[in-house]
């Protein structure tokens, strides 16, 4: 019953998405308002079908209906309810269904928000979204069908991958990632619409930018949550390993960030239209590439699923979209004619160009390093991977240069500026940079890149703070009362620029925290007998022994350690080993003692009678990463809230500095 209903809903959604896409494209080329209304209806209907199909699957999961094949793979009556609910995205088929669900919501919401606007673009955009929707519902209907029937339903299932049950972060990380990934479909549809229509007017920048910024916020948070989860669960004391699947999430983020920046130049100066559209297309293509990497089984990692049957289908889709995008771009890029021009390299817009160059270099560096082993294996049949030192060596210098740009870019005025103006803008923040660097050196920082990061970080922090509050200070200077000036300058009028600078401030802290936590980290592997102590990084760790605890879905061995400093007890730490029924090897969950300056991290390697083999890590500043990435997300949201309608008229005369904006 349930499988039949599910299959029916999915087949209907394939039909609806395909028909809707045809109607929408036809409405676009005929400029038919009636056709647009019909394509909107099909968009809503597609979303409703996806919602219903996902609802049916959740119902089957919660009621443990093991006649549904997917439920028989990931369901279990032994696991807590929250695990059952999140099982929807714990394995391949369900995760593709969840993808379709989010795509449906995005399509319906964007269609509704723009139901009366941008009539000339919307049919093409809806057509593109529904085409993508048709592909994913085809995947759900065919190669990754979760609604297959099991002839002899088992009484109980194995439950989802134990690693995913091990931490609550697993509830929010995948949905955030999907919201980021799937959301890139929306700006892609807008970009295709601009190309098909052959123009990209100023008023159309608003939905393009907003539709890019929202998934960017989700993706930013998702990447951080993934790192945080790895840090809290995997027990090796790091948050980023240049795992191909991690790279897959980073790649579209890099191009989307570049696009958010180039869109500002496009808005202000009327140039870089074709370039921005290219970046938006690249972001979408990279999400599809990422889907291929995680879903095809070509990489084995904690993030990927093992089945490989849908790999070729996604690869064909990727190739088709790539071909379509490139052909469309080459035919239509000239129609997105530049309206203005760039005057000077040493200017705000010049720095935006350098920023874009760096982001593209980063994207290619990571892309080449990630795909190289795949290509070698496909051609020569030899297995290998690209080691972490490659990524570190390539990404660290470019990343440091980007931090430098966060400082220099906003300090420079738009358009042409005199040498004196430029020096007056660039010199004062050096003092802050020098102070931060000196503090770091005094605290023992010796790594050259970390020292540079501190210098640039201090510089960028100074510039960011100065510009963040500039409109407010101008109004106070003018004689406005502080309260109204604050609300008016930062929240009512200048929300976009305020949000943008919040993102920059968060990014500066992330840069510094990553540099410090990765270069100042120390670790020790030691075997302790019960009662024995070891002193490491200022703390004395005493092994107190271990105890067993039985839970319905797992058996835990909890080791207890006493942490003391200078003879005073600080806390008790309880790293554990969890043994799940479905796995032969127990999974360690580390214990983390966080202070504002550093984390003290204990992970159990093995427990044998009275002995515990442990990994102890001292990580300074690591907690700052999580907090400041959340700050970046909040900044993005602040910038996203629509402010007073405002359209720049592109003029050859640069606007004054006070009206400037940073990306967001």
């Amino acid at each position, binding site marked *: 019953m349930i499988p039949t209903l599910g299959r029916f809903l999915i087949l209907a959604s394939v039909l609806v998405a395909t028909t809707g896409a045809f109607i929408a494209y036809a409405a676009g080329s005929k400029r038919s308002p009636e056709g647009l209304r019909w394509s909107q209806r099909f968009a809503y209907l597609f979303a409703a079908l996806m919602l219903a199909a996902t609802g049916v699957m959740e119902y089957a999961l919660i009621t443990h209906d093991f006649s549904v094949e997917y439920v028989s793979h990931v369901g279990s009556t032994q696991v807590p309810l929250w695990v059952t609910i999140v099982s929807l995205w714990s394995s391949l088929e369900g995760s593709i269904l969840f993808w379709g669900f989010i795509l449906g919501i995005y399509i319906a919401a964007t269609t509704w928000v723009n139901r009366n606007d941008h009539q000339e673009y919307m049919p093409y955009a809806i057509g593109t979204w529904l085409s993508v929707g048709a592909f994913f519902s085809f995947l759900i209907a065919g190669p990754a069908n979760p609604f297959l029937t099991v002839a002899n339903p088992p009484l109980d299932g194995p439950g989802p991958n134990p690693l995913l049950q091990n931490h609550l972060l697993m509830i929010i990380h995948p949905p955030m990632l999907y919201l980021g990934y799937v959301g890139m479909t929306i700006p892609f549809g807008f970009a295709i619409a601009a190309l098909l229509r052959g123009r990209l007017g100023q008023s159309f920048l608003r939905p393009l930018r907003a539709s890019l910024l929202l998934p960017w916020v989700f993706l930013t948070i998702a990447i951080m949550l993934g790192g945080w989860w790895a840090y809290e669960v995997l027990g090796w004391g790091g948050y980023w390993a240049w795992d191909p699947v991690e790279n897959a999430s980073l790649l579209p983020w890099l191009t989307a960030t570049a696009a958010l920046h180039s869109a500002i130049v496009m808005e202000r100066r009327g140039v870089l239209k074709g370039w921005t559209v290219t970046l938006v297309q690249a972001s979408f293509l990279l999400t599809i590439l990422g889907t291929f990497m995680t879903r095809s089984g070509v990489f084995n990692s904690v993030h990927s699923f093992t089945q490989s049957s849908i790999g070729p289908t996604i690869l064909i889709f990727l190739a088709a979209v790539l071909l379509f995008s490139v052909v469309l771009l080459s035919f239509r890029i000239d129609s997105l004619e530049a309206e203005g021009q760039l005057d000077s390299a040493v200017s705000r817009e010049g720095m935006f160009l350098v920023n874009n160059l760096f982001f593209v270099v980063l994207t290619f560096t990571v892309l080449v390093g990630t795909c190289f082993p795949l290509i070698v294996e496909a051609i020569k049949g030899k297995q290998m991977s690209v080691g*972490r030192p490659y990524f570190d060596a390539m990404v660290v210098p470019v990343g440091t240069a980007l931090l430098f740009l966060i400082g220099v870019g906003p300090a420079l005025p738009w358009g042409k500026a005199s040498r004196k103006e430029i020096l007056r803008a660039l010199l004062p923040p050096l003092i802050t940079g020098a102070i931060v660097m000196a503090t770091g050196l005094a605290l023992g920082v010796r790594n050259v890149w970390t020292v540079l990061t501190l210098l640039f970080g201090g510089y960028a922090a100074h510039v960011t703070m100065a510009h963040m509050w500039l409109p407010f200070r101008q109004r106070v200077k003018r004689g406005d009362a502080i309260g109204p000036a604050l609300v008016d300058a930062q929240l009512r009028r200048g929300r976009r620029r305020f949000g943008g600078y919040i993102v920059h401030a968060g990014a500066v802290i992330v840069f510094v925290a990553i540099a410090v936590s990765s270069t100042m980290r120390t670790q020790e592997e030691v*075997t302790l007998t019960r009662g024995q102590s070891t002193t490491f990084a200022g703390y004395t760790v005493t092994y107190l022994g271990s105890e067993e605890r039985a839970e319905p879905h797992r058996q835990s061995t909890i080791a207890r350690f006493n942490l003391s400093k200078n003879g005073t007890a600080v806390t008790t730490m309880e790293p554990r080993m969890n043994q799940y029924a479905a796995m032969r090897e127990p999974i360690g969950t580390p214990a983390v003692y966080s202070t504002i300056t550093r984390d003290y991290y204990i992970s159990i390697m093995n427990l044998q009678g009275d002995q515990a083999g442990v990994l102890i890590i001292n990580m300074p500043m690591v907690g700052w990463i999580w907090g400041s990435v959340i700050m970046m997300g909040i900044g993005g949201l602040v910038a996203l809230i629509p402010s007073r309608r405002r359209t720049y008229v592109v003029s050859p005369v640069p606007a004054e500095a006070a009206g400037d904006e940073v990306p967001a």
Partner: protein
Amino acid sequence: MTEPINGEMPTASAAMRRKSRWFMAGALVVAAAAFLVITLGGISKNLVYYWTPTDLHAAGDKAYGATIRLGGMVAPHSVQGRNGASGLEFDVKDATGIVHVKSSGVPPQMFRENIGVVVEGTMTRAGYFQCNRLMVSHNNEYRAPKAGHAIDKKELQKLMRSTEGLKD
């Protein structure tokens, strides 16, 4: 809504624009070539090879100093220095080759004789494999543990690609 209309560019600048476009294209090609040389150079210096003991012997001098993930089975009765944080030694073998491995870290819980392992490190001229990372083969999917647990080549290959538990 103010939609600026695409204006015609003055014809005088059209030729110049074409010229600068060719210049841009040339610069782009040069930059792309330089970029490729740098990245591929960086990659070739930082490759991690996935080898079995037999592959390792076949590679000869190439094995010294290279980063290798060696996959095989822990040979019976070869494990020494089980207790204590440092000085674990064992042999990793496949059907036709055997390599002596020295590891300084604390081994994972499941580590024992006759189990599939992947060790990451490099071959030293002294004739042993210096391991900085030790992974035990296990399957994430449900399967009743088999007695003796014969080494599963496919599973080892999967493990070689895994980055779970990666340490610096």
